[in-house]
């Protein structure tokens, strides 16, 4: 729970023709994280074509499912095999044909919709032209000196097209608009007609189809328009039937395609990081938990009956940066994990702060927001919304419980300090003691973070930093000595002369370490060492004082309640209770949120930043994915 599980690097070598089944077996096994690398003797990449075919097929299937609807839940038989490359390419080619047919169908439907819109626009045009009583036959005469075009274009292109057409002696006049399409007429000398062809294409100009009837006279076009409407509706009906036919024809096989692509996914996914091979052999490389090695051997034996060779080794010091971290948490701790993950993933071998985070965060929240009533409300609300909030609701329940425990210690119920006897003391009655205790907690917290950091550095093989750096044991000695000196000076403890020597010794070791690890000119080394020492001192001092906010917020909680009561006492009986209830709601909502964030901030900045790099890689096992899950 405090460290990532020990992993082994495995390389599974087998016939390349069985690579897809091996990847499927590893995905079903559920604890294999593919990794790059592998034997340098294997120089080829035999799964690249497989992955490419799978990606294409998957993209086509996704588009088909989006157009034709999903075919329902997917079930994969436990003995189903993954398709070979040839099968996958055949499936990909079939999906391409189906998608082309489906897309043609949809595009034809879209074109019919456009035709419908154009007919409607033409009808509007007709109404306008009827009013003008224009003879379009004369206007659009092919042997006239004036060339006239009727059409539509995107409204945003209108101004510039008008300006450009002027350069070719043409004019553009708008007569209607529908959505972002403008309907316009363009007129210009027929001799320069071809000059604007490219320009009109560039501007997205769409020529309106003009029937002979419309050219004769607007009134004569009525019959034509009705016929055209009927024709479009007939075509549209046929198109709908065609689409339904496609769904009926391809639906069952699409479902089968989904199955086969789900079975092919593991090798395609493994190939993303690299499946190597040579000749007729392929090798899958990755990480497996040590405790599952026997189970892995059994699964591979059952599937391949000895037709594969499994190579195992523990990660070496050079591998550490690339090893993923696999953590296992008890159910009660799992809700806190996302809060740690939002900072980062621990490196392999590094201390995992999830457990101490959960304990310290609850302690800090309870100490800053100690109230039996408020805690109970938070716990009940979180439990009430458990279904909607999911696992994170249990963080709320635990925070509420912590608040109730500290409420008992402080003797506070909904801000009232007289309803129950405090088991310990009310913060407002001894604020100095609260502040001292908060700083003391901070000192203990920072000591723990320095110890953890030294341990992390040692685990990473950086013994020098673990022993002599400001974040290591030397820094810890400096810090403890400095705390002793400050405590003596403040009168909080009896003067201990050794404390100053301890601090000076720690300081000297850190300074020498900085000096020896800085590779620069003399002046620059001096400057770097001085600044680093100063920064270390200021950092430790300010981080310690930062914990005073724990006491400050516990006092603030009582003070806010007092303010609410003072306000309520100035009102009548009904007003009093309304003010008390509303005031408590504000305290729970506003102050509760602030305290939760402050506790998190203390954990992140005063805690994690000292020892937790958060740049590890999470263990992501190869899995069989069905129904679009990831």
């Amino acid at each position, binding site marked *: 729970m405090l460290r990532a599980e020990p992993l082994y690097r495995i390389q599974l070598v087998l016939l390349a023709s069985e690579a897809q089944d091996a990847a499927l077996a590893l995905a079903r096994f559920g604890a294999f994280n593919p990794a790059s690398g592998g034997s340098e003797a294997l120089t080829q990449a035999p799964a690249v074509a497989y992955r490419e075919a799978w990606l294409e097929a998957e*993209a*086509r299937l996704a588009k088909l499912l989006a157009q034709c609807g999903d075919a329902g839940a997917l079930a994969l038989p436990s003995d189903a095999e993954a398709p070979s490359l040839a099968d996958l390419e055949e499936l990909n080619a079939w999906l391409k044909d189906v998608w082309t047919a489906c897309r043609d169908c949809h595009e034809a439907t879209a074109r019919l919709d456009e035709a419908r819109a154009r007919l409607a626009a033409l009808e509007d045009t007709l109404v306008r032209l009827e009013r003008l009583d224009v003879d379009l036959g004369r206007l659009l005469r092919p042997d006239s000196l004036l060339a006239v075009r009727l059409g539509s274009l995107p409204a945003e292109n209108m101004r510039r097209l008008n300006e450009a057409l*002027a*350069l070719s002696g043409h004019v553009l006049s708008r007569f209607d608009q529908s959505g972002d399409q403008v309907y316009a007429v363009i007129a210009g000398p027929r001799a320069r007609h071809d000059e*604007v062809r490219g*320009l009109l294409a*560039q501007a*997205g100009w769409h020529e309106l189809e003009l029937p002979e009837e419309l050219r004769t006279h607007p009134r004569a076009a009525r019959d034509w328009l009705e016929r055209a409407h009927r024709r479009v509706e007939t075509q549209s009906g046929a198109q709908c039937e065609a689409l339904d036919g496609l769904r009926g024809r391809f639906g069952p096989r699409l479902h089968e395609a989904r199955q086969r692509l789900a079975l092919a996914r593991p090798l395609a996914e493994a190939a993303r990081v690299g499946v190597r091979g040579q000749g007729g052999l392929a090798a899958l490389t990755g990480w497996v938990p040590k405790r599952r090695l026997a189970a892995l051997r059994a699964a591979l034996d059952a599937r391949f009956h000895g037709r594969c060779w499994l190579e195992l080794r523990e990660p070496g010091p050079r591998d550490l940066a690339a090893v993923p971290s696999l953590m296992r948490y008890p159910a009660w701790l799992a809700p806190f994990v996302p809060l740690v993950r939002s900072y980062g993933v621990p490196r392999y071998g590094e201390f995992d702060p999830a457990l101490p985070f959960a304990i310290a965060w609850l302690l800090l929240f309870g100490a800053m927001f100690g109230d039996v009533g408020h805690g109970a409300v938070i716990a009940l609300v979180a439990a009430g919304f458990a279904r909607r909030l999911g696992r994170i609701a249990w963080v709320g329940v635990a925070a509420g419980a912590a608040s109730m425990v500290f409420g008992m210690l402080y003797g506070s119920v909904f801000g009232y300090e007289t309803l129950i006897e405090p088991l310990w003391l009310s913060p407002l009655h001894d604020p100095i003691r609260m502040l001292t205790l908060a700083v003391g907690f901070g000192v203990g917290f920072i000591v723990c973070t320095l110890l953890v950091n030294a341990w992390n550095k040692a685990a990473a093989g950086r013994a020098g930093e673990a022993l002599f750096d400001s974040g290591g044991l030397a820094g810890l000695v400096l810090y403890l000595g400095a705390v002793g000196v400050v405590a003596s000076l403040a009168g909080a403890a009896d003067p201990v002369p050794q404390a100053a020597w301890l601090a000076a010794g720690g300081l000297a070791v850190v300074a020498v370490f900085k000096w020896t690890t800085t590779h620069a000119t003399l002046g620059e080394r001096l400057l770097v060492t001085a600044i680093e020492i100063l920064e270390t001192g200021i950092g430790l001092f300010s981080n310690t004082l930062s914990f005073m906010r724990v006491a400050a917020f516990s006092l603030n909680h009582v003070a806010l309640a007092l303010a609410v009561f003072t306000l309520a006492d100035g009102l009548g009986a009904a007003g009093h209770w309304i003010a008390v209830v509303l005031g408590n709601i504000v305290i729970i909502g506003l102050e509760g949120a602030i305290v939760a964030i402050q506790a998190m901030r203390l954990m992140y900045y005063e805690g994690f930043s000292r020892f937790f790099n958060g740049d590890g890689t999470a263990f992501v096992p190869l899995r069989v994915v069905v129904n679009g899950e990831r």
Partner: protein
Amino acid sequence: MTPASGDAYLNTRVSLFAERLWPDAELDALVGAGADAITHRLAQKGLALLAPTPEQGGGSLEHRIVAQMLEETRVLIRPLAGGARDFLAFWTARFEMSNVKTLLRSKMSGERAAAALARLAPMGAFGRLDSETLAHAEDAGELLRRLEAGPYAAVVRHARRAFEQSRDPFVLDAALDQGYYEGLVARAQFLETRLGAPLRGLMAALVDRINLVWLLRYRFNYDLPPAQVYYLLIGSRYDLPVTRLRELAQLDSLPAVLDALPAPWRAQLVGARDIPDVFARMEQAGAGQALRVLRGHAPPLARAFAYLILRERDLRALRGVLRGRRLGLAAADIRVAMQRAPETLH
């Protein structure tokens, strides 16, 4: 960061980065330098990433140059927010638009998705497109429709409509270039009112140069009619406004266009032989303008933009040197290649 500390950060960063720019003489000296000396000089200028190694190919050099530009932009953009951040981020979007063009060409040529993906410049944190999904579009039309549903909708919308009407790759390319630069101009417009002449000067040098070079290429290399040439240019409010561009587009020879330019431009372009020569002179003038902004007391964002313009110019020249040496070209040919090539997004 507060605005004051953000400005201080950016000013300091730009000043530090400015030390890494290459004077012309130093670039020229690289042509004849030994491999070790080049590696050393590149490391000194913060370009260790570009140091030539035996196994690196030309394509990967392009990618490393893009990675370098993105990394430096990432550092500069750190204290910025709102419109200023959006402007510099959009300046890097040229590389992503170049990726879009690669994908479109691969769709038109029927190339497999994996091959196209391998040629895309890695955009890192600046990447806004799901390249893998786009690469698996069935054809250019589907790819454009997908792009239109993404963050570059404003750039792509017009290009998609134009392409659907014409099916002409040139129309598509030109519309994408135009859409991108109009997006940049729109983003700069808001900042110019706040930051004043320095940023406006940089944008004017950039947009006017692009408009003039495009006008000359479309008109005299591709022989397009004036109306179409005018339509393909960037809507500009700078030294070559739309009225002037309309006039220029109607002229029928390179000398006639150069004669009709504003007086300061004519002086710079006296004796220009061809379009690459025009481009090189205009770019030289633009670099001078950027250098003045960088070394003056301009607002930090304008200085950062000036630095990025100059840095990219240096990197283009360095690419010429490194690639020329790799191909074993003569020093004289490499020096010719170092002359700036005409500018597009690709």
